[in-house]
């Protein structure tokens, strides 16, 4: 691919010349949406992002003035500057964090490319909205073309961010629109794209192939767990993406430095998600209820309590039997057991509650903050608190009493396969 020397040199700062890939972080949210913690703590977050090893950071002009010094040095991330502004996050009143709703969708070019060049930027980023209406798209195209012309003149790379939004965009046509818009942006003069994931490897590969310029996948809304964000990166890379521009998935992460380092390990280091997260595939057994066999004797509850605590009773059992209510006598009794769904472990912010490689829930009391998140997260309401700590089913070390005592076979052991994190014994 031929480009002016200025563009080539600056793209080399962004895309690692060794692998042609880049890990960028978008930290320009305060320029367009509500003031959130990741906006107010931007300096601290940027420091962590730099330490994490990002290749580029997307910021506004104001942030460049205030925090641009964090990007000094040959090994520091390239500065990408947002050269336009839009009010999309404030459209309508449905967004609860929208303190000042607007009615009309606006997007403005707010600087010239040369302003960013003088600031020391390695590239500028601009939006290209498609799907909101012909006139609005034409305005976007016109602004993008103006930037493209100036960028060619001054040797500054242009990253265009196609966004498929508006009433004409549906779940059915969004991938097709993104594929088309990526190519249109490249035809106008984009040197790289920052674009949402289409949802699957096949269509994203089509997008990457047809764009003909490096494609950086963006993260979108904050993922519930880091693994989801990493899986998105992994899929995009498999489709041929050249890297990422993640915003809230990094800036709102519990540990932005680790999140960036994890993405770098995936993008540059050739690591797998399992390696990054310290996971391995575990095979074990888990409980499975068979309601049709249950007669409601509740012996399993008694056996559970007897196995774990002195004495008898049912209130502190780690499972329960639900009986049909009045008028529904024909319905079966239903044993409710821990299925190792993992929602409690996912909700645990400190990593105290995990699923061990041998397929057991394990609580490390020293890490437990007694927040109760696991109790709230359990979809079966099986976790209870004792002495401040959660009590969970531990499968009786692989030989569950409930299974042994139920002569009807209403609770059985079944195979369980899942990726789990390594757990170090307390």
């Amino acid at each position, binding site marked *: *691919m*031929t480009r002016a020397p200025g563009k080539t040199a600056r793209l080399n700062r962004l895309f690692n010349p060794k692998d042609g890939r880049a890990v960028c972080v978008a930290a320009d949210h305060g320029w367009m949406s509500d003031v959130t913690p990741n906006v107010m703590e931007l300096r601290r977050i940027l420091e962590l992002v730099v330490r994490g090893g990002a290749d580029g950071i997307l910021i506004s002009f104001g942030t460049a003035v205030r925090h641009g010094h964090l990007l000094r040095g040959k090994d520091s991330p390239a500065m990408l500057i947002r050269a336009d502004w839009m009010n999309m996050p404030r459209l309508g009143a449905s967004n609860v964090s929208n303190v000042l709703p607007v009615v009309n969708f606006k997007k403005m070019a707010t600087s010239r490319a040369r302003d960013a060049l003088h600031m020391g930027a390695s590239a500028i980023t601009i939006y290209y909205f*498609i799907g909101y209406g012909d006139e609005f798209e034409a305005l976007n*195209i*016109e602004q993008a073309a103006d930037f493209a012309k100036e960028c060619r003149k001054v040797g500054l790379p242009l990253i265009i961010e196609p966004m498929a939004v508006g009433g004409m965009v549906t779940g059915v046509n969004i991938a097709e629109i993104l594929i088309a818009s990526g*190519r249109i942006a490249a035809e106008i003069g984009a040197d790289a794209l920052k674009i949402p994931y289409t949802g699957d490897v096949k269509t994203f590969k089509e997008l990457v192939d047809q764009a003909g310029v490096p494609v950086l996948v963006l993260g979108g809304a904050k993922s519930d767990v880091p693994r989801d964000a990493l899986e998105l990166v992994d899929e995009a890379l498999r489709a041929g993406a050249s890297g990422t521009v993640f915003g809230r998935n990094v800036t709102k992460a519990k540990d932005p430095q680790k999140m960036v380092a994890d993405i770098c390990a995936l993008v540059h280091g050739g690591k797998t998600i399992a390696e990054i997260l310290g996971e391995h595939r575990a095979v074990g057994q888990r409980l499975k209820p068979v309601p049709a066999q249950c007669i409601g004797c509740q012996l399993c509850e008694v056996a559970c309590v007897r196995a774990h605590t002195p004495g008898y009773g049912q209130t502190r059992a780690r499972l329960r039997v639900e009986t049909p209510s009045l008028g529904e006598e024909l319905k079966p009794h239903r044993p409710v057991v821990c299925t190792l769904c993992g929602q409690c472990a996912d909700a645990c912010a400190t990593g105290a509650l995990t699923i061990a490689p041998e397929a057991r829930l394990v609580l490390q009391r020293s890490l437990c903050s007694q927040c109760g998140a696991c109790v709230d997260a359990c979809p079966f309401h099986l976790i209870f608190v004792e002495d401040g700590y959660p009590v969970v089913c531990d499968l009786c070390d692989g030989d569950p009493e409930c299974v042994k005592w139920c002569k009807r076979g209403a609770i059985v052991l079944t195979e369980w396969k899942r990726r789990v994190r390594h757990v170090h014994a307390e």
Partner: protein
Amino acid sequence: MEIDIGKTIRISDFVHAADGRALLLDTTLPGSIGAVPGLEHTAEALAEVTDIVDGLIVNPGQAEHHAEFLGGRHRASPLVRVDWTNAFRGQDFCLPATEFRHLFISDAEDALALGASAAVASLFLGFDDEAEARNIEALSHLARECTRLALPLVVDIRPIGYKVGPSNFEESVKLGLSFMQELGADVLIIPPCSQGTCATIGGWIAVPVLVRMEEFPEAAHIDAFLAAGLRGFVLGEKVFARERYAERLEVLARQVHQRSSSDDARAR
């Protein structure tokens, strides 16, 4: 009117000085609707045809990204399209256009910096009056800028608006030609017209006129257009989807330039 030497040299990059004819390929539709069949990978497509045709009409982004396939003594010259439209977004496109939009995405200076041998823009006819007036205004500014920079201006006449039908199509083409010749265009592109209209045009227009074909032209049409005084062809993006398009382009190039009959050219 004498054109200056800069324009003369640049026009001769894609209109042969010896025979005054040209065969061009247009690759710019993806700028409006994304990749089209055969043009999914621009570099591969350009590499296939650059040694065959006289010029390639490209969008600014592709002119920049794929400059290695463009220009040079024996390869296609880049003609940079400086405008954009949603007019070609039909019902089969994921986002069909509901209102006609046309705007300029580049200018003569930008095109020249991209190594262009000409700037290409469209004159749309048949849409509302304001759109037409804006189109003429923008083309006039472009023509003045092209003259100042000695960059040839190629205008692609597109009578595709709702006001154009079979009864006034060819008169619309002639109207567009008249406008653009007066405006100062150096090369004009028209859609296929009847033999009578082509003969009128060939005898009247002082600048090279090329015919835009969406498919490979039939042998009889090639001879008829050239005999009428038209100077060659601009093939649209659909030809990239045809089998053995490079081979067929070679045949067409011989037919255009060697004044041979179509049968002779195929036999060679």
